[in-house]
Every structure is written in structure tokens, then in C-alpha cells.
């Protein structure tokens, strides 16, 4: 319980220091704020190690319990250990890490993104089966129009009016207005959420 109180006190103190350092236009506060943030970076690097341990623990447990698909977990542990060992030994710029990056990480991530091309078409095709409200209809119409207006036809190039009038107007006027509204709304939400955490109304580190 005391641990929670200490954590809460630290959270409030650090948050206020950094916030005041950001919002008050006093140069003297800048280094303090930066130092506090610098410490936060160091702590979050420890969190990476904790995360690695957690990942290892979760999959080790699967292997130990011989859970369903635990073979995959064993493979994950193997690949992680190997990459980590090579990385620690040769550094992230070492040849082995370059190979791991260009041979595994890059192609897999790119291929996962490529999957979305099909997934998104499928999702948009089925959207009106799920919901047929005005928002969905406008959404689908806009998405199709934006894609269509952005393409060039063989030998003809951009589609007249669509390419040079509708598409820019759609993206830089209509969508920009809504996008700004979304950004402002999210910012308001972030502001109140941050304040809740700052006043320890929310204590994700436990307690309450």
C-alpha cells in the first residue's frame, strides 16, 4: 500500500514539474524538465528489458505446460534469443543484425501490410451488410470516390475533374475540416485524460 502511495506521489510530482516546465516560459525550468524527461527515457529503456522478460516468460510457460501450439512459442524463444545474443555481441549495425532485419523483419512487416490490401477491400465491401446507416454510406462513397479520383487511366492520365478538382477539394477542404475536428476532439480527450492521471484519479500503477 505504501508503495502505491509513493508511486502516486512521484507521479504527481514528476508530472507537475514537467508540465510547469513546459508551460511556464522560464528558461531556467527548461533544463529541469529536460533532465526529468531524460530520466524517463532511461526508465523506459528498463521497461523494454522487463517487456522482453515478460515475453520470454509467457512463451516459456506455454512450452513448459506443453500448451496447444507451444512449438511456436519455442520457435519464438529461439529466434528472440538468437537475435538478442547476436545483437548484444555485434551491435544493431552488425552484419548479422542487418541480415536479420532485411531477411526477416522487413519482409514480414511489409508482407503483413500487404495483407491489408485484401483485408480492407473485403471489409469495405461488407460494411454495408453490417451497417446501413448514413455514416457508413457516406464513408463508403467517399472512400471509393477518393480512390477513383486519385487514379490515372491508361494513356489518358488523371481523370478530368475527378483528379484535379474533386480529389483535392475532397482531401484538402472537406476532409481537412473533419480531420481538424477529430484532432481537436482527440486533443481534448487527451487533455482530460492526462489531467486525470496527473491528479491520480486514474492510477494505472495500482491502488484505488
Amino acid at each position, binding site marked *: 500500500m505504501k508503495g502505491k502511495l509513493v508511486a502516486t506521489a512521484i507521479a504527481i510530482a514528476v508530472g507537475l514539474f514537467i508540465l510547469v516546465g513546459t508551460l511556464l516560459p522560464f528558461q531556467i525550468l527548461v533544463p529541469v524538465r529536460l533532465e526529468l524527461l531524460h530520466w524517463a527515457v*532511461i526508465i523506459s529503456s528498463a521497461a523494454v528489458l522487463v517487456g522482453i522478460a515478460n515475453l520470454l516468460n509467457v512463451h516459456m510457460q506455454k512450452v513448459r505446460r506443453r500448451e496447444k501450439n507451444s512449438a511456436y512459442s519455442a520457435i519464438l524463444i529461439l529466434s528472440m534469443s538468437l537475435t538478442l545474443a547476436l545483437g548484444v555481441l555485434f551491435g544493431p549495425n552488425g552484419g548479422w543484425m542487418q541480415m536479420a532485419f532485411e531477411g526477416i523483419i522487413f519482409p514480414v512487416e511489409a508482407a503483413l501490410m500487404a495483407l491489408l490490401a485484401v483485408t480492407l477491400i473485403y471489409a469495405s465491401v461488407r460494411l454495408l451488410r453490417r451497417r446501413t446507416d448514413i455514416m457508413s454510406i457516406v464513408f463508403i462513397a467517399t472512400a471509393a470516390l477518393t480512390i477513383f479520383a486519385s487514379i490515372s487511366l491508361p494513356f489518358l492520365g488523371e481523370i478530368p475533374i475527378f483528379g484535379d478538382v474533386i480529389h483535392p477539394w475532397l482531401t484538402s477542404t472537406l476532409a481537412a475540416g473533419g480531420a481538424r475536428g477529430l484532432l481537436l476532439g482527440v486533443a*481534448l480527450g487527451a487533455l482530460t485524460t492526462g489531467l486525470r492521471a496527473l491528479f491520480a484519479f486514474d492510477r494505472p500503477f495500482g491502488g484505488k
Partner: protein
Amino acid sequence: MSDFIVGIVGFLFTIMILSYLIGDNFLFRLAVHIFVGASAGYVATVAIHQVIMPYLIVPLIQGSMKERTLLAIPLILFVLMLMKISPRLSWMGGPAVGYLVGAGAAVAISGAVLGTILPQAGAAAQPFDWLHNPNPLGTLINGAIMLVGTVTTLVYFQFGAHRAEDGSVKRNALVEALAWVGRLFVALTLGVLFAGVFSAALTALIERINSLLALFGF
């Protein structure tokens, strides 16, 4: 030679991942698990070599007395955070996590106000500066449309409502009317964004297939 090996490995992993289009299968799962492990190892390596070493270890060893003293606090918090590895000692990590939450809250607040609210509010008014605009009418009309979009989108998210006599929760008529317009702007914006995401995904697909074909000399 290593490029060739990397190309072959990349080719295999690409095929394994794209096999998900047919259906969930063991090749996909295998590739994903190897990838998750490799990326975790890679990120951990980067964290060790480019954060922990230069930010903590090296200054502690080579830094001045002042630097070392200053690093005592993050060092303690660093160690406390590491306690979270053990479920038994996890509670000791509270202060470190609390520090991150406090810093995160401050960053979120300042980011929201300084990074979005103020700049975007200013940007919303920009088009109305017709005096310094070559095409004042067009800019004013577009600015007005954007302002309407921004305002109605904000209204759309209005949460507060009043409870009617029949127990239903309603917003007042004006808010509802504005919200209806805002809903159209939100849908329209999301539609444009969706097209953008699809465009990115399609480019990624083309790039992947191109890399596969390149291996066969196409």
C-alpha cells in the same frame, strides 16, 4: 552472397505471410512467431546499445561526479523497474512506473494543448485572412466549409445529454442537428483516410510482389 541469402529468406517469409490470404495456416504462424521473436530481440538490442549504454552505463563509468550524482536517481528507478520482472518483487517497481505515468501525463497534456489545440485553432482561422489572399472568395468559402466541418465534428462528439421524461437520453435539438452534419464530415474524413490506408497497403503489396518477381529476374 549474403544479399542472395537475405533475398531467399525474405522471399520465403513473404510467401509464408501472404499464405494467410488463403487462410490461417502453420506457415503463417511460423513466420509470425519467428518475426515476433526476431523483432523483439532487435529492439532489445537497440535499447541496450543506443539507450542503456550511452545514457546510463557509460556516464556512470566515464562521467563526471556531477553526472554520476545526477544519474543516481534514474539508476535507482531503473533497478526498481527491473524488479517488475519478478512477480514477487513486482511491487517494488511502483515508483518507476509512477514516474513514467507522471511524465506521460505531462507530455500528453502539453502535447494536446501546445501541439494540437492552439496550432489547429489558429489554422482554422487562417483562411479567413482574406486581406492577404490572392483568391479571397475561394479561400473564404473553403475556410467556411472547413470551419463548419471542424465545429460540427466537435459538436458531434458532445457527450452531455439530458434525460427525457420517458427515460431516454437525448441531446437538445440544435446539438442534434449540428451533430448530424458533423457525422457526415466525420464519415467523409474517415472515408478519405481509409482510401489513404488502402493506398499504403496496396503499395506495400505491389512492392512485395515486385521483390518476389525481382528474385526471378522480372
